[in-house]
């Protein structure tokens, strides 16, 4: 897990998610296997946000610490390198923080991801847009050139056509670009109804600033990664309002969990355990969900045998507070929808799908000059 280094923030959130489940399951006496309760231990190593180191440490945990099952690291790159280790040692890995489909297209049999794959990140926004009036029809897409971001952008391009929308402007920028203003100027020239970014938090902030600077008055501003974090609102203040994003989970969703806690109790337990006023974000929730999937698979298998648990994972179909968890033949959870969030008056609100939303989208986004 990336406990230090560039993604230490996300890594520590993921660890919180794992620890939430750990404390809960051991309070219950552990995982029940064939009528016997087994206490659970999670061993962590710090991969310093480096994918190669993550794979080395994973091997070490298997050989030296005799790890029986693997919970994933943070991020698509580290997950991709750890998947190789899981496969080589034939130990099932349930991961919650690597959404790039590239991880799952290599025919691996031991890697299972509980989160929605990258190509679905922004399709929820398209679904939502199709229900709004006046209906937006043109999209400008600015995308970073890493695997994950390209998949998100491609997902939008493929899906938009089926909803009668088209991508009028599409540009990739090098990952880690520090200036995006000229791309935003080009996007403005295409006069899009929807301005989208498939990238990372830093670029989402820069694009939102440039959109205001240059007066890009799209009806929808939607960014794949970034707006769901509290940092986005802190960095932009009022300018963060009206922005949409696709999120794996929000504290407002309403599912009917088969076991473990409901959404409200989960939020309460999180605040108590970590002595914070902040809601758990989706990194925390999806990490807890990975533990739940592994637990259920072990219980279903009635065994601690790696092979039997792998087979139970492949057959798993269960609803948790995080949504449905069920894997396709590649180990991807394509059954859980992404939810759409919008920032309204400095607060995150879930606005789509309607059956889990807590409020309506504020649409269209008013022009910058009238805010």
């Amino acid at each position: 897990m990336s406990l230090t280094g560039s993604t230490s923030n996300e890594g520590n959130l993921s660890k919180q998610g794992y620890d939430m489940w750990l404390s809960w399951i051991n309070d219950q006496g552990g995982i029940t296997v064939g009528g016997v309760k087994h206490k659970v231990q999670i061993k962590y190593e710090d991969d310093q946000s480096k994918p190669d180191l993550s794979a080395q440490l994973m091997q070490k945990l298997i050989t030296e610490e005799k790890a029986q099952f693997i919970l994933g690291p943070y991020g698509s790159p580290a997950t991709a390198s750890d998947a190789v280790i899981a496969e080589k040692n034939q130990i099932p890995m349930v991961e919650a923080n690597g959404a790039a489909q590239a991880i799952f297209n290599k025919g691996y049999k031991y890697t299972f991801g509980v989160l929605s794959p990258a190509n679905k990140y922004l399709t929820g926004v398209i679904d939502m847009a199709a229900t709004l009036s006046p209906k937006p029809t043109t999209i400008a897409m600015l995308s970073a050139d890493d695997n994950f971001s390209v998949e998100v952008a491609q997902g939008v391009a493929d899906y938009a056509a089926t909803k009668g929308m088209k991508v009028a402007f599409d540009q990739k920028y090098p990952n880690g670009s520090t200036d995006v203003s000229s791309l935003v100027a080009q996007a403005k020239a295409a006069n899009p109804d929807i301005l989208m970014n498939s990238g990372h938090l830093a670029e989402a902030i820069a694009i939102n600033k440039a959109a205001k600077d240059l007066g890009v008055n799209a009806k929808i501003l939607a960014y794949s990664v970034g707006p769901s974090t509290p940092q986005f609102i802190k960095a932009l203040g009022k300018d963060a309002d009206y922005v949409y994003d696709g999120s794996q989970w929000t504290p407002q969703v309403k599912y009917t969990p088969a076991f473990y806690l409901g959404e409200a109790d989960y939020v309460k337990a999180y605040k108590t355990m970590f002595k914070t006023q902040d809601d758990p974000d989706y990194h925390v929730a999806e990490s807890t969900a990975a533990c739940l999937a592994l637990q259920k698979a072990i219980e279903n298998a009635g065994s601690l045998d790696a092979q039997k648990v792998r087979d139970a994972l492949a057959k798993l179909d269960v609803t948790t507070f995080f949504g449905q968890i069920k894997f396709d033949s590649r180990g991807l959870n394509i059954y859980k929808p992404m939810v759409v969030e919008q920032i309204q008056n400095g607060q995150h609100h879930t606005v789509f799908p309607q059956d889990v939303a807590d409020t309506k989208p504020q649409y269209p986004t008013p022009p910058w000059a009238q805010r």
Partner: protein
Amino acid sequence: MSLLAQQLVLAILLGGVYVAVAIGFSLVWGILNIINLSHGAFIVVGAYITWTLFGRLGLDPFLSLPIDAAALFALGYLLQRGLINRVIRAPVFFTLLLTFGVNLAIVNLLLAVFTSDFRSVTPPYAGSGIVLGPVVIPSIRLAAFAIALLLAALLSLLMRRTRIGAAIQAVASDRDAAQLVGIDLRHTYALTYGIGAACAGVAGGLLSTVQAISPTAGEPYTLQAFVVVVLGGLGSVTATVVGGLLFGLIEVFGQSAPGLGAGYANAIAFAVLVIVLIVRPQGLLGR
């Protein structure tokens, strides 16, 4: 046509940012012969000072620039005097290693203090701009551009018109002779490095208003500074200004190059760099 005009405006304003980013780097390289790999980290430190003052005290980001400069000057002066000066006569490889180490230390310290969260300074007037028909000139970027040029002018004046500047120039041309005529070498070195760091601090303060910053965000700035200095040439403030503006133009028009797209922006920028190195190895205005 209006898109072209808008791009041109953005390119020139971006060039101003590059001037600010590169000017201190150029000074330290030109005078001390140190390729300062911790330059990007200094920029980020400046950005965090501005962010902290804005967040805690509500101080306008442009008013905090002198504080950035003073703090970074002190940091730079002490670092050079206490640490880097020990290897100043060693081959360039040693100063590279040492400044790289300083960079790692600063980045990890920032991570410990500020966490890896992204931050940005958004004052109330962010997003306002001068509208000329279809072209928008964002006021924050315009102000940043003006300050970058002012910084360049001040540095140029300092080098040409003051005793400190004369001492720095003397040390650069012949350090033994300079010592003979009574110039305190260690003090002058540390001053130069401090001034370079102060320029980085100002650049950081400016960047915090237009971009998102995090402790690890400094590396691209070191690279950009390097490219700007190589393009423009070592040894004069004017060369850095020309290099910075040129690099801004290349980046922006590289992003919209017909038939290629923004993914090639870096490739185009570095291709131009290679061509300049082949045709004029000393840089466009280098001596």
